[in-house]
């Protein structure tokens, strides 16, 4: 049996409260406020207290999907990545890199945002990268 307490940060708003995820046998079973965290000092709002719930939702995406004739079909990662890469390359070749745009997110980590803009700038070759926080 595995029972763990993993410190993390709430991702439901820009306050950034410290939380502890309670893990039982590889499954998230609860969220607790971190008592000694400088931001929230052991308190959370309703969203923070229920942070683990969306992670376990049955609605989570579990496989890469590709739309064929208007319907999604499950594919393997290598297929999904190959299709994506080919389409991007094709569009870049015919219309130039500035015909591609990337929207990064306020929900993903710093590292991932860094990589996403690096990908846009170095791999696609455009500065068309923005986040949705204006919205």
């Amino acid at each position, binding site marked *: *049996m595995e*029972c*763990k*307490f993993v*410190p993390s940060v709430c991702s439901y708003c820009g306050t950034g409260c410290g939380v*502890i995820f*309670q893990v*039982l046998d590889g499954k998230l*079973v*609860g969220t*607790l*406020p*971190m*008592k*000694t*965290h400088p931001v*929230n000092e*052991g*308190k*959370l*709002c*309703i969203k*923070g*207290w229920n942070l683990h719930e969306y992670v376990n939702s049955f609605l989570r995406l579990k496989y890469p999907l590709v739309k064929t004739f208007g319907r999604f079909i499950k594919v393997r990662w290598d297929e999904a990545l190959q299709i994506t890469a080919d389409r991007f390359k094709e569009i870049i070749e015919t219309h130039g890199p500035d015909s591609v745009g990337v929207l990064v997110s306020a929900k993903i980590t710093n590292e991932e945002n860094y990589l996403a803009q690096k990908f846009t700038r170095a791999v696609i070759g455009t500065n068309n990268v923005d986040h949705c926080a204006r919205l």
Partner: protein
Amino acid sequence: MKNKIKEWLKSGQIDIFLGYKTLQGHPLPHAFGKDNLEDIDTLITGSNYYPLEKIATKLVAEKPDIKIGMITQDHSQRALNVLYIWNQLDPENIKPLKGDGCSSNLKEHADDSHREAGKSGQFKKQFGMNTHASIEEAEIFAQQERFQRWMYEFQKCIKCYGCRNICPVCFCKQCSLEHSNLIGTGSLPPEAPIYHLVRAVHMAGRCIDCGLCEEACPADIPLRLLYRKVNAIVTELFDYETGSRLDQSPFSIIGESITLKLKPIAAA
């Protein structure tokens, strides 16, 4: 003490030991297992930070045969007693290791050291309820004023449900606080004072005065004082101090109804 825990784990008397361990300067709850006995050397003791009894209840619900060792300070022993009485936990599942240090006034010389001194600001003292007030101090105010002061406190509530979520003895599957016929949903603050009174009433004969709810309250509402008052009434009427003994609570659930046993007149 640490050797004893190692013993217990090695001999299979317990499956895990629930305690605390410091991670990068922060004391966090930690489950010590038999696979890594050296780990026990990092166990820290002292204060109640997290509702370990509640975590234990959750674990037992998932794994009915589990044996959990834990340090039982006074309030935590009281929490366990309440959970036993209400059939949420079986004493078979818990192996207590006596500890001390308690922040409750149910015990003489309570250790309040981990709680911030002078927590209540001037304004709060003037218009709200002083967090550190005793029941007697809170009763100095005339009824009307007292009500207004409590209402000031309740208006701050951000409906986080933290008071319920962290409480070691809150275990109802269907929480009345989420009953939309009782308390309106979707707006802030929650309906005052009903939201808080519903919880207070439900804590009668259950609250073991651990103070975790108040510490978890983002609005600094002196919840503990509120529940103490409710419990004082229970003590007065029923001669029952919550969690202090293992015999039946005056609130025993038989089917759907709750019966109360008044204390003998002679004892009053």
